[in-house]
């Protein structure tokens, strides 16, 4: 019984469907947070969730079952039967960039809070003309 369930979930199509649905669900959770929350840190968390959803979507769909990691070693001397390394390299770069941007944003938010005591986007009104 359990084996047949596991076998079902181990099919490429099923895995990809789950990844797509899950990551898109996560994306909309983030989008909802971005649009509904007004606390600056919560908005940043929502942006982080959206980012992660896109990363999971990309990595999950570009992964192919049954292939090895893209590394040359004793048993593998050619680039055959290996996963595509480009999505991983891309997403690693994107994760680093995204983290840097969020860290910068939170440092802005902290400085802003220290100066004005405000931590919500709808209270930000230094410019009212």
């Amino acid at each position: 019984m359990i084996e047949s369930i596991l076998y079902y979930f181990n099919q490429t199509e099923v895995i990809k469907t789950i990844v797509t649905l899950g990551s898109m669900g996560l994306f909309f959770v983030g989008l909802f947070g971005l649009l509904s929350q007004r606390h600056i840190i919560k908005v940043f968390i929502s942006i982080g969730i959206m980012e992660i959803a896109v990363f999971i979507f990309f990595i999950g769909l570009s992964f192919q079952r049954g292939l090895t990691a893209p590394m040359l070693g004793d048993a593998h001397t050619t680039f055959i039967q290996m996963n595509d390394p480009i999505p991983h390299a891309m997403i690693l770069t994107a994760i680093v960039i995204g983290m840097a941007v969020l860290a910068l944003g939170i440092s802005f938010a902290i400085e802003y809070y220290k100066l004005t005591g405000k931590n919500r986007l709808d209270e930000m009104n230094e410019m009212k003309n």
Partner: protein
Amino acid sequence: MSSIYFIALPLLFGFATPILAKFGKNGIAYSSILLQVALFVLSLQLFVTMDRSIIEVIAIAPPLGIGFVVNSISLFFVMLFTFFILMASLYYLKLRKLNPYPNEAKFFILINMLLASTIGLVLSSDIFNIYVFFEIAGISAYILSAYRKTPKALEAGLKYLLTGAVASIFLVFAIALLYLHLGTLNLALISQGFTALDSDIKLLISLFLLIGFGLKVEIFPLNFWVTDIYEGSDAFTDALFSAVVVKAYLFVFFHLLYLFLPNKEFTLFLLYLGAVSMLIAEVIALRQNNLKRIFAYSSLGQVGLLFVAFSMQDVISISAGLYILLAHSLAKMVLFLSLASLFEHYKNEDISLLKEMNSPFLRNVIIISMLSLLGIPLLAGFVGKFLLLKTVAFYGLFGLLGLLILSALIESIYYFKIIGLLLIKKETKEQFHPSTLQKFVLLVLTLGVIFVGVAPFAISDFMATSASVMLDTQSYQNLLLGAN
């Protein structure tokens, strides 16, 4: 190989700052300017020696590697950006006597990062590199925006960063979809494979690109915070945003759009989006009081006009777009730089500043650049607007023509209001003279405005070549794929 210098040298400058700081207080500032002069001379040299089409391509085996393409259109932008950032840095040399940025070494690193990343954006022929440069330009712009760490500046930086972070998510999404469907990041290969894709996917990718770049180029439904960003940042940084950063994003967006265009309706949509964007910006600008805000709305209007020009997909309209872009960058540079001096001197950012200011030189250059933005004949803005309206009329899009003329009329109302305030006699007040270097910078930019207006034929060949290169995606593909 010389195009790599445009990106590598400004980035390496950051690592050299600890050494340069040892050469005294001005070491970093002067070496930064020296670097920018060198890059500008290099771009001029490339311009002189080019054979009017393609100069060089650096590519490591096309399907995999990094590529930089220097053709006449990307060289146009490289010259533009190095020139404007050089001018801004020269202007800052005197501005720093009045009110320097704290921790100047960082400031110069950021300026050079901005230079490297905007040039990288226009030269890259690999969509993931475009994403990386997109982010570098974004991050340096956020920090420049919030640099003063006043509540206003921090609010502007936060808003810029939030919109930028959302923009980058949509760009990554578009890139992920492209890679999943086509298995490549190379622009030429994407361009080849794109037509065979399902039309829904094509539209989805284009929409994500539009959202990603639209948040950066200040197009209508996505520009709700742009004016706050302009108002909160320094006028000096606004000059860079308006003349350099936005232009880089705008060019890359249309470059990508031409390479993988979903369908005809999408460009028609962009055409009207641009026109509506312009109209709305000009209407809102009428009610503003803060000078930075007024010129921010005018920037939004001009971006709308540029959207119209680039969406027409016609050689004449694209060269019109390039003229408008050049004229707008020159004029906004003059306006924001002179405002930076005036704000420092009078400590007033409202429109009432114009009543109390007494500075004949600044008044004259401001008036000339505003008249150019309006499109008065014999000034730079006229050429582009005239060509564009001619093309729009030629294609029989009279509704669009009406929208554009209406927004130009509304634009003229508040422009003439400002010019009227500038022309009030103020002999009683003490005169304010900018320093000689600042006068020189503003004079060079204003002479540029007049030169392009009086003798547009001097560069019309180059503009037409650039426009046809931008439109000719087939030769771009051949160039990139046959380059190794």
